[in-house]
């Protein structure tokens, strides 16, 4: 069950139509979906302090209710190596419309996957797993299942992907941690069922999967129109 604090947070986000990234990450973390070490810093000092605590290099991302597609406004800066560069990134982000701070997060690595959910007209909540990365909409290599998922569903989603061998180990690419991925998918499925009709769709994109862990790097939760 989601705490009332979290449901209130989601309900409060309805005025924008979507949940700000740091809040989305909190929501995921609270339901057992792994997220990176991150902080939502509201000032330059906080930003630098958070990065120092997390450890460089970090990724910095703008937080603004007016910026849903962060990369469209160069609102994502991966691989920031030190405080000097981070301060410059902060200054640039501060000029973006609706600026409400910066997400500072640890850098992740591994295979890029996309995980998503939507409330389908005919079938209700459904969950998607696909091969991620920049070509995600080119190859459209995805599998969809009706939620709630069972472990068996996750296994079959992996089998059904054309690129499944990328995930199970191929030519020097290490296999991803399938049990961790399954755990993450099942936790995400629970969250989707909890949120129910509150959401329109969720993108976890990218999700980084390595031999050790599966972690959501970015999350966008679109809320259903009210009424």
């Amino acid at each position, binding site marked *: 069950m989601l705490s009332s604090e979290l449901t209130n947070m989601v309900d409060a986000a309805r005025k924008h139509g979507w949940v700000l990234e740091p809040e989305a990450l909190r929501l995921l973390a609270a339901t057992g979906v792994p997220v990176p070490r991150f902080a939502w810093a509201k000032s330059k000092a906080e930003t630098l302090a958070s990065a120092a605590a997390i450890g460089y290099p970090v990724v910095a991302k703008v937080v603004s209710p007016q910026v*849903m597609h962060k990369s469209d406004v160069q609102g994502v800066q991966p691989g920031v190596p030190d405080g000097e560069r981070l301060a410059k990134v902060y200054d640039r982000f501060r000029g973006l419309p609706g600026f409400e701070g910066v997400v500072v997060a640890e850098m992740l690595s591994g295979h890029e996957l996309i995980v998503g959910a*939507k409330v*389908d007209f*005919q079938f209700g909540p459904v969950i998607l797993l696909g091969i991620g990365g920049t070509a*995600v909409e080119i190859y459209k290599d*995805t599998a*969809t299942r*009706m939620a709630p998922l069972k472990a068996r569903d996750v296994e079959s989603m992996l089998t059904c992907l054309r690129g499944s061998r990328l995930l199970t180990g191929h030519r020097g690419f290490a296999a991803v941690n399938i049990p961790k991925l399954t755990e993450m998918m099942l936790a995400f499925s629970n969250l989707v069922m909890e949120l129910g009709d509150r959401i329109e769709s969720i993108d976890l994109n990218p999700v980084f999967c390595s031999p050790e862990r599966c972690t959501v790097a970015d999350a966008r939760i*679109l809320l259903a129109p009210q009424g």
Partner: protein
Amino acid sequence: MNFAPLFKPGSMAVAGVSLSNDRHPANVIYNKIHLRYPVKVYPVNPKGGIFKRDRVYRGMEEIPGPIDLAVIAVRADLVPETLGQCIRKGAGGAVIISGGFAESGRRDLQERIAAMAREADFPFIGPNCLGIYAPGKFDTFFLPGERLVRPNPGSVGFVSQSGGVLVDQMVKFTEQGLGLSLAVSIGNKALIREIDLLRYLAEDSATKVIAFYVEGFGRNEGRAFVELAAGLSKPVVVLKAGKTAEGSRAVSSHTAALAGDYKVFADVLAQHGIVEARNEFELTCFCESLSHYPRTIDGKVGVITVSGGHGALATDICADLGLQVPRLSEAVKAEIRAGLSANIRDIASLENPVDLTGSSTDEDFEAAVSALGRASEVDCLLLLLLPYSPGISSDLGARLSYVHQQTGKPLVAYVPHVEKYRILIEGFELNNVPVAASIDGAAFMVEAMRRCRPC
């Protein structure tokens, strides 16, 4: 709701019979039931009178006996009144043929009749549909009998949102020699929907395979449908239209763009072990196969042929579908070889496909089917039978069916569908072995069993 009066009526009434226009849909329906079916039928028209020497009743309530099924083929605006009469009369149910409801902007009228029926717990099919085809019992199609291709009684229950698709599919089923237990065109499905008929056909002892032509489900209805279908022991086959419609709304999320309506539909069906047919050919093949073998296989196919070319073509098709044609072990090859006649023992190729060559005889086929039928390396047999070679007799279909019945492993045959091989084909079909008219068809029949499980 009790659907028995709808699908097994002893008495019917047809509302809307015209005294002046014998091509009126109601007249076509009345005439065919009156002349050709063992069901008592009454014509109804508010004007009364005499129609073909029978009394025309002014309303349902005037009819002396009970009415199980009323067929309503009157103008849309008169449907509520006629439906009200049926309910007051205590009829068992109705088929509303009439159009002029939601499909032409009169959602209000459609909701009104649905509400009336719900209130009275009165089942009806339609509106805007052809209704029911129950082979050998009755039908409510307003299409003259001589224009229809009429499948025999059989084991496929077919439910279609489109009447046109249903009638045309009856042609395909008949060409395949596939019989129907019941076919229903549900039209606007104002009251009775796919899931209601899924529930009915699941309980219907004559139905072994339940097939649907679906354009779309209502809100969350798809969820209820797949959950019910997943729990049934009978195979469920679905042909979906509207696969390529692009969402018109601009989508702002990857998931919405990637998980389009059809993608979700196809994946969710597979998740629940429902067999999706991608076209009418697959639908026919899948229904044929699953009506004989309502079961699941992994898809390790043993191919038996008399022609190397056919074996190669079949192997390609199987591979494209994701079926395996595994190499056979030495033990199995030795067992096949031991059963072959002396003149082909050294020329037959016992790799998979097993090529018995054009010199083979009935006994060679029996030996190969028997040995492969018992081999654990394959879980299904695909037989490519070209009855041109002189060693093959017209008894081979029946003989191989008997061998197959001893091993129980699914056997699918390809035999060219021409009249002179009919006895060979019937030898298989009457003994519960499906026969395809093409290599592709035979491969699809195997594929049906592989898809018939949760993915």
